[in-house]
C-alpha cells in the first residue's frame, strides 16, 4: 500500500492507502475522496477526475496520451502539474505524494 493524500479545494484532506497498479482515480473513488467525480469511470472521456501536483512527481507518471491531452485542453488545463487521475497508475515511489483537487470538477 502506498500513502497518497488528496486535498480538496477547501483544504479537507483524505489519506488513501493506494493499491499499486490501479489508477489514482480508482483508488480515490474506493476511498470516497469527494473531489474526484470520475463521471465516465475512467474512459478518459469526462475530465472530472483532474488532479494537481508539484511538477517533481510527474516523472513517476507515464506521459499523457493524445486523448488525455485533448481532454485537459478541453478543461483549459495546461502545464506539467495537472493530469487525469484515471490515466495514471499508482507506483510504490508515489508514497507521500500530495494531490490537490479543483474547486469543481464540472
Amino acid at each position: 500500500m502506498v500513502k497518497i493524500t488528496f486535498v480538496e479545494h477547501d483544504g479537507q484532506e483524505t489519506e488513501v492507502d493506494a493499491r499499486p497498479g490501479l489508477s489514482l482515480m480508482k483508488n480515490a473513488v474506493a476511498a470516497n475522496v469527494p473531489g474526484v467525480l470520475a463521471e465516465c469511470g475512467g474512459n478518459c472521456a469526462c475530465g472530472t477526475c483532474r488532479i494537481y501536483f508539484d511538477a517533481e512527481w510527474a516523472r513517476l507518471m507515464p506521459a499523457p496520451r493524445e486523448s488525455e491531452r485533448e481532454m485537459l485542453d478541453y478543461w483549459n488545463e495546461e502545464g506539467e502539474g495537472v493530469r487525469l487521475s484515471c490515466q495514471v497508475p499508482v507506483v510504490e515511489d508515489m508514497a507521500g505524494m500530495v494531490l490537490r483537487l479543483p474547486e469543481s470538477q464540472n
Partner: protein
Amino acid sequence: MTSQTTIDYAKTDVFTEYAIAADPHGFFEYLRAQGPIVPLGNRNVVAVTGYDEGCAIFRDDENFSAINTVTGPYLPLDYDPHRPMDEQIDSCRAQNGYLASIMSEDTSAHEKSKAILNGIITPARMKANEAYMYEVADQIIDEFIDKGRFNVVTDFGQPFAQLVIAELIGVPEEDRVSVRGMAADPNQMPGNLGGGFDMSANPLARMGMQFYGYVLDRRANPRDDVLTRLCQQTYDDGSLPPPEAVVAVATFLFGAGQDTTVQLFAAMLRLLADNPGLEDRLRAEPALIPDFVDEALRIEGVTKSTFRYVRNRVTIGGFTFEPGQHVMLNIAAMNRDPAKYEAPNAFNLDRKNVRTHVAFGRGLHACAGGPLARAEGRVAVERLLARLKNIRFDEGRHGPANARQFQYLPNYSLYGVIEQWMEFDRV
C-alpha cells in the same frame, strides 16, 4: 393504453407488470417512502431509490458484480453458498454468451475492454464530428418537413442515431443503407417484461461478422475513424488486443447508443410540447440547450433501472446486502431523490446541479457514449428548433392534454415510447 387505475404495488411484480413500465414513478415513490434501499420481497431483489446509496453501489465493483446488468433477476444462476462466488459467476458467464459484453464484465476482463475504449468518445472528438451531425439532422428533417407531422421514433430518432454512429465508427458508405432501418423489436430487448428476450433476433447483435471484416481491414489499412483508433489501442502492458476483443467492443458500441438516444429525443420533444414558452426560450438562449438535454435525461431518462449482483456481504447506507441478491439500481428514482434535487418531479431548466444526474450511470461501468449522446441531443434540438415551431402532440394519436395515450416499451430496464407523433409549423 393508460395507467389511470391505481395499482397495489405491494402485490404487483415490477418485472412483469406493464402498468409500472408505463408509469414507473408511482412505484418508485412507493419504494422511496419505505427507505432508500428496500427488499422487494420477490425474486431476491433489493431496490435502490436513494442517490447517494446508488452511487456508492455503482462505485463498488469489488462487492457488486455487473453480471446481471442485462438480465436483472432473470440471471441464469442459482447461488450456492457452498461454492466460491467467483467460480459461479465465471461459469454462468461462460455458458451465456450475452453475459460477456463489456457492460456485464467485471474487474480485469472489464478493464481490458475499457482499455480499448479509452479516450475514443470524448467531448473534443465529438466537436470534430459536429458538422456531420448537423448535416444528417437537416437531411432527415427535409424528409418530413412538408408533411407537418412526424413520428419522433422512426422518422427522426432512429435514422439520426444510426447514421451518426455509423459515420463515427466508420461503417463504409456502401453498408450504410443496410444499417438504416435496423432497429430492435421493442418486445425483444433486454429488460423485456417477463424476462424473455431473444438476442439473436436483434439485428444489431448480428453485426458481429460484418465488424470482424472491418477490424481486419483497419488493421491492414488504417483510416481516420473510430474503428481504426479502436484497432490501435493497446492493453496496459502494451500488447495489442486480439481482433475478437475489438469486434466485441465495437459492435456493442454500435448497438448501445441507439434505442437510448432515440428515447432521449422523444423525451425532449415531450417536454417541449408540454412546456409552453420553452421553445422560444431555447431559441433565444441556445446556450441553455445543453442544460435542457441534461434536465431531460434527469427527469425523463430512458435508463430506468440497471442491476448489480451481490458478491460479498456488505453494508451500505445502513442496509446489509447478502451474496446472491440482485440489486435493482433505479436510476430514474435516484435522479428524482429529493435529498439531492429540489422539487425533483418538476422540470426546471435552471437547476444548478443538473449535470450530477446518473442517467449515464456512475463508476467503472458509466456510459462510454455520454459525450456522443449529449452532442446528438444538442444538435437535434438546435436543428429541430431552427426549422420547426409550435411543436405539439398529434392529438388524433395521443389524445388531449389531460388524457394522453402512449404505447410504452414493455420493459423493466428501459423507459420509453414505441411511437410518438408530433405536429408542427414550419419556421
